[in-house]
């Protein structure tokens, strides 16, 4: 019956996906379009940006918007608009890489813990407990002070810390699946562990993991932006929204609002992803209840 269901969803998944989107609530559709735009901007940043990422194009620092510089220039006379576009690429790319690593690690160990149980589960779970006993941002700060701030360090540190959360989610959903009869059946048939994980467990926990991916992406994105804002994340001259907020922040005292452009860019993306995840969760649980 499960195999049945699997082929059925596979057959109709494409058609269903387009139908799903059409039936989605207005907010979710807007969110999907926004996320798509962000992705396209990130992908084609070099084609879209009028100037280079670190290129000093004006002798006037903090030039007002207008003319050749759509959003004005920053403290070094670099084009803000170009930096905003490159920022999309850097901020999102780094957050995506982080989430991808934390997911691979977290779900791998989560599934191993759930299938192996016993001391393996205990050892990983207690280790994760200790890591999670320290607030994530604080932990990231101490690790950055040791390793020094660079993009690879940033990705690895946030990915490791965030994988603990993925681990918990993956372990708990996998636990529920492992207790099912079809897993027992597969074991009795003599299927190997890898086969069981790939064919029986993974498809069943995928919806939860996909939703979790969205949330973890937001979290990684916000953490990295916060770190960059604090001056401890992505370092100049790499353009990144968190550092752009930081660089423009002294101007707020004079009523210039340029810092809100990157800050709102961050907020719009995280809110959109949250809306999409919300809708997806609704939908995923709905699909499961159909049977």
């Amino acid at each position, binding site marked *: 019956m499960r195999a049945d269901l699997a082929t059925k969803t596979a057959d109709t998944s494409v058609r269903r996906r387009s139908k799903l989107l059409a039936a989605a609530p207005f907010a979710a559709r807007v969110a999907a379009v926004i996320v798509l735009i962000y992705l396209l901007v990130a992908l084609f940043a070099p084609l879209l940006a009028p100037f280079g990422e670190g290129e000093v194009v004006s002798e006037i620092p903090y030039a007002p918007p207008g003319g050749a510089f759509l959003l004005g220039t920053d403290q070094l006379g670099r084009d803000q608009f170009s930096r905003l576009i490159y920022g999309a690429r850097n901020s999102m790319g780094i957050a995506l890489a982080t989430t991808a690593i934390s997911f691979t690690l977290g779900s791998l160990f989560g599934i191993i813990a759930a299938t192996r149980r016993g001391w393996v589960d205990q050892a990983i779970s207690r280790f994760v407990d200790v890591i999670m*006993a320290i*607030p*994530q941002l*604080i932990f990231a700060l101490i690790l950055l002070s040791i390793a020094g701030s660079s993009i690879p360090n940033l990705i690895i540190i946030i990915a490791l810390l965030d994988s603990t959360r993925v681990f918990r989610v993956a372990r708990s959903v996998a636990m529920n699946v492992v207790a099912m009869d079809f897993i027992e059946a597969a074991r009795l048939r003599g299927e190997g562990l890898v086969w069981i994980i790939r064919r029986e467990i993974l498809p069943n926990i995928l919806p939860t993991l996909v939703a979790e991916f969205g949330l973890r992406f937001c979290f990684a994105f916000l953490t990295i932006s916060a770190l960059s804002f604090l001056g401890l994340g992505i370092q100049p001259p790499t353009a990144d929204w968190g550092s752009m907020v930081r660089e423009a922040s002294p101007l*707020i005292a004079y009523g210039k609002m340029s810092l*809100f452009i990157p800050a709102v860019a961050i907020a719009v993306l995280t809110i959109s992803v*949250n809306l999409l995840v919300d809708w997806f969760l609704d939908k995923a649980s709905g699909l499961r209840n159909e049977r």
Partner: protein
Amino acid sequence: MHALGRTILYRLVLGLFSILAVSVVVFSALEFLPGDFAASVLGRSATPETVAAFRQELGLDLPPVQRYLAWIGGLLHGDLGTSFAGRAYTPRPVADIVLPRLGNTLFLAAVTAALATPIALFLGLLAALYRNSRFDRLVNALTLSTIAIPEFLVAYLIILVLAVKFPLFYSMSSLSPGMTLAEKLYLVALPVLTLSFVIVAHMMRMTRAAIIGVLSSPYIEMARLKGTRPWHVIFRHALPNALGPIVNVIAFSLAYLVVGVVVIEVVFVYPGIGQTMVDAVRNRDIPVVQACTLIFAVTYITLNLVADIVAIATNPRLLHAR
């Protein structure tokens, strides 16, 4: 009562164990320093001899277990080590740097808690009572967005409105010793407001969920069917049972405050422990970072522990899990 005491004791031991484990993690920070670290602290002019002397002073030539015990012993006596910054000329004890700042942060957190908790509980109660109403949905959307956006955006929006467009408050909260309480309160108004926004969102959502959970129990329906007045149902029947979850919510939100405070202190240039930690990370002043991490982690663990214990103490069902 016996079982309750035992469970609480068990939780306390578990909490103590987590703190111990965290201290090991924080301690190992020095262990994993890259080899060139001493040179980068001492500057480029450092000779191999001064680097070796520095390593010896840090005790890096002793076995780790011995060093850990000495470090923990020092901590228990209030000795947090010596800062790396300017250590060649005037060595400063970490305690002198961190402890005064800790007082400022606790002040900020206390004022925020005092302001945010009643507001959050009230809004949560209203949203639960009128759930799915327009008010509920509005508050829901607002709090969801507040949670999803970066804290610095909230902070700068508040600065824009209350310090730039309508200059009622200062955008910088530089406290100095000798200020009166009223002056201090005026200075921290904006950071408190920002932090309140963020934690009210969390607290309110959790309060709403807790109260809805209680309101859906059969005994509430029974009270209603008896013809008890609505507010009587809320305050005499529902609230006592929701109190446990609510105190739990408060403790969790205060634990969340621990992290929120870092970014907010930097935005408002507030001389607290969060700002201290960020500066220390930037200068790679490891002893100060270690001390700050420990303080944050212990606060976080303690608050979560309190939340746990309150939840168990007010809900005897949790004693018999499974």
